[in-house]
């Protein structure tokens, strides 16, 4: 035990928690902490906006599987963290946020830069703390890391009053954390696993409905073994892309609003959903009352509140997903040895749908650039080890559709909250976590204009990410809805971003290399040029056709049965035996 002030106790606690990097911006209330940070072994990356710090922590956490850390001052510094923390909550990302708070005597007086950030983050943070006594700092930090990283991961905020950072305390970091009110389940109950195996062995049309939990639980190897053992089709949600290789013949791709015909139909027509770390989000189910009406449901998840939240589970398997699948494999093997259902007809149906309705796009007739083509080439040229981070919009859906994901933790996006501006800072955090891996942000021209300031951070801190702006000079996804549902009345979706800003010049001004490309024949050479620059961030302005749309599509609030493969074009169901 040693005497130090609260600020030093905070930094010593972060070191003890194994933190190697954090992203943040100092200010009055957190200033005491920045003094020991100055001499700490922890790398502090000075961002340009706290939102960038939060998404960077998320990007770091998503690629490393470790807790991402961000730090900000009170008031506006803290409120700027709200969006990324809400984002991390929706996508179950382990993040710890440290904020300074006004001195404890000033709390509640509307003091300068006072904001009740604990109250503000209460609705979505996995947990949060307001610390006014320096003696509480080490325990709060230890608990925050424990809570953020175990069970269903999520963001935890630790708000610390300035005087608690300044006062002296005895430092002792807890050797273990035990919380009476928080005991996430590890291994599943044996009986639940047996029930699941029995249900699987009786099913003739099963499908693995795999969600982001499979990646969070590092369950991809077990998943591969389980899927091959049963030989049933697999769908990977937007959050699960990479949990199961896209190249695997059992993979039908992404389900949901912009999912493949085969993945959407597999869920709709299945007699059993083997749900692994997924949560029946409305973007996957479409109109819930018409979703997979003939299917029984096995729901394996670590969060008890997800079981039965949106869809009744016939068998619930509560526990860590990796341990759950590992436990299921031998039990299912034994069950299948007794009765093995014949899945041939089911697989044949799904494979013929997959063959009849592959993802595709048309090259624009006027010779302009197709956004899907650009994204497909990015995936092909940079290869399956590359990490991709997307913004939110059409480019995000195309990235999920046209990049082939082979490995977990190579696809980062804001799935639950749909946060425009996620890509650049998330890519920055990803590159910090995986410095030897190529990291591409695939961003929209709209999204890029929300958070591109972090390219300055990247340029100054040797974080050479690459950014592909899919510049359709529009808030493209919103424009697509206006095309489809508002008679083409394009209210406030024209960004004019082929005129202003000049993205390559903006990139150069921020210390990056700026490139641009507007002809299909130049795409490969431009990507290769960007790939050859590794000592500076690179930004490529891909000036694409603005009228391209994301297909297939299930319109919001409608049934998955009404999936469209193009405007006013449904799949030819009569030619399919379903």
């Amino acid at each position, binding site marked *: 035990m040693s005497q130090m002030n609260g600020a030093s106790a905070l930094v010593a606690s972060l070191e003890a928690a194994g933190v190697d990097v954090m992203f943040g911006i100092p200010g009055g209330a957190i200033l005491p902490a920045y003094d020991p940070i100055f001499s700490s072994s922890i790398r502090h990356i000075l961002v340009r906006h706290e939102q960038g710090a939060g998404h960077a922590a998320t990007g770091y956490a998503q690629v490393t599987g470790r807790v991402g850390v961000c730090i900000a001052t009170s008031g506006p510094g803290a409120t700027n963290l709200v969006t990324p923390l809400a984002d991390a909550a929706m996508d179950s990302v382990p993040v710890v946020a440290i904020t300074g708070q006004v001195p404890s005597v000033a709390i509640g007086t509307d003091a300068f830069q006072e904001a009740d950030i*604990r*109250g503000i983050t*209460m*609705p979505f943070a*996995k*947990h949060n703390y*307001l610390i006014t006594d320096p003696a509480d700092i080490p325990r709060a930090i230890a608990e925050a890391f424990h*809570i953020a990283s175990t069970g269903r991961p999520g963001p935890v905020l630790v708000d610390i009053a300035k005087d608690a950072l300044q006062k002296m305390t005895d430092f002792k970091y807890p050797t273990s954390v035990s*919380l*009476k*009110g*928080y005991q996430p389940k590890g291994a599943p109950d044996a009986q639940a696993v047996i029930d699941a195996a029995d249900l699987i062995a009786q099913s003739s049309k099963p499908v693995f409905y795999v969600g982001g939990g499979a990646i969070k639980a590092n369950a991809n190897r077990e998943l591969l073994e389980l899927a091959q053992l049963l030989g049933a089709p697999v769908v990977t949600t937007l959050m699960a892309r990479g949990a199961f290789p896209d190249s695997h013949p059992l993979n039908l791709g992404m389900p949901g609003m912009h999912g493949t015909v085969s993945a959407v139909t597999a869920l709709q027509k299945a007699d059993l959903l083997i749900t692994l770390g997924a949560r029946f989000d*409305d973007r996957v*189910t479409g*109109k*819930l*009352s018409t979703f997979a009406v003939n299917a029984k449901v096995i729901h394996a998840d670590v*969060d*008890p*509140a997800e*079981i*039965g*939240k*949106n*869809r*009744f589970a016939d068998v619930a398997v509560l526990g860590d997903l990796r341990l759950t699948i590992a436990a299921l494999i031998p039990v299912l093997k034994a069950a299948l040895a007794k009765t093995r259902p014949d899945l041939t007809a089911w697989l044949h149906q799904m494979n013929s749908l997959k063959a009849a309705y592959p993802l595709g796009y048309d090259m624009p007739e006027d010779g302009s650039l197709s956004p899907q083509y650009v994204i497909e080439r990015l995936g092909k040229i940079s290869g399956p080890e590359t990490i991709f981070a997307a913004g939110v919009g059409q480019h995000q859906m195309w990235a999920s559709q046209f990049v082939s994901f082979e490995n977990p933790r190579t696809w980062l996006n804001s799935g639950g909250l749909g946060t425009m501006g996620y890509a650049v800072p998330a890519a920055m955090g990803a590159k910090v976590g995986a410095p030897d891996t190529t990291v591409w942000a695939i961003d929209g021209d709209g999204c890029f204009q929300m958070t591109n300031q972090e390219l300055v951070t990247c340029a100054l801190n040797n974080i050479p990410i690459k950014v592909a702006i899919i510049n359709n000079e529009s808030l493209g996804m919103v424009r697509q809805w206006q095309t489809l549902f508002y008679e083409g009345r394009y209210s406030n979706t024209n960004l004019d971003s082929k005129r202003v800003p000049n993205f390559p010049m903006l990139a150069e001004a921020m210390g990056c290399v700026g490139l641009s490309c507007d002809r299909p024949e130049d795409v490969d050479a431009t990507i290769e040029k960007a790939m050859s620059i590794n000592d500076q961030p690179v930004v490529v302005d891909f000036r694409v056709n603005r009228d391209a749309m994301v297909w297939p599509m299930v319109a*919001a*609030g409608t049934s998955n049965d009404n999936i469209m493969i193009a405007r006013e074009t449904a799949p030819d169901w009569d030619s399919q035996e379903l």
Partner: protein
Amino acid sequence: MAQHTLEVIVENSPGVLARVAGLFSRRAYNIERLSVGPTSNPETSKMEIVVNLDGHALEQVIAQLDKLINVLSIKEILPHSAVPTVHDTQPDYQN
């Protein structure tokens, strides 16, 4: 819908009432009656929450409450009826 009473033991930590009340409001569940009192343990308090919810919705409230780190235990004082098999708790989104 029948009234159900939940007896919730919580840690006596600041903000815990806001956490519980906030959970009910953001998940759009009404609280019929709420009382908070001491227990024999000075580190915990007992909340009695009366809700007008059944089956699935009640199970969800309990499951979500249980996720709050400061909630130590939840006991239902009245028994509740069986779970229906079809659940459509989501609004049909138009956005």
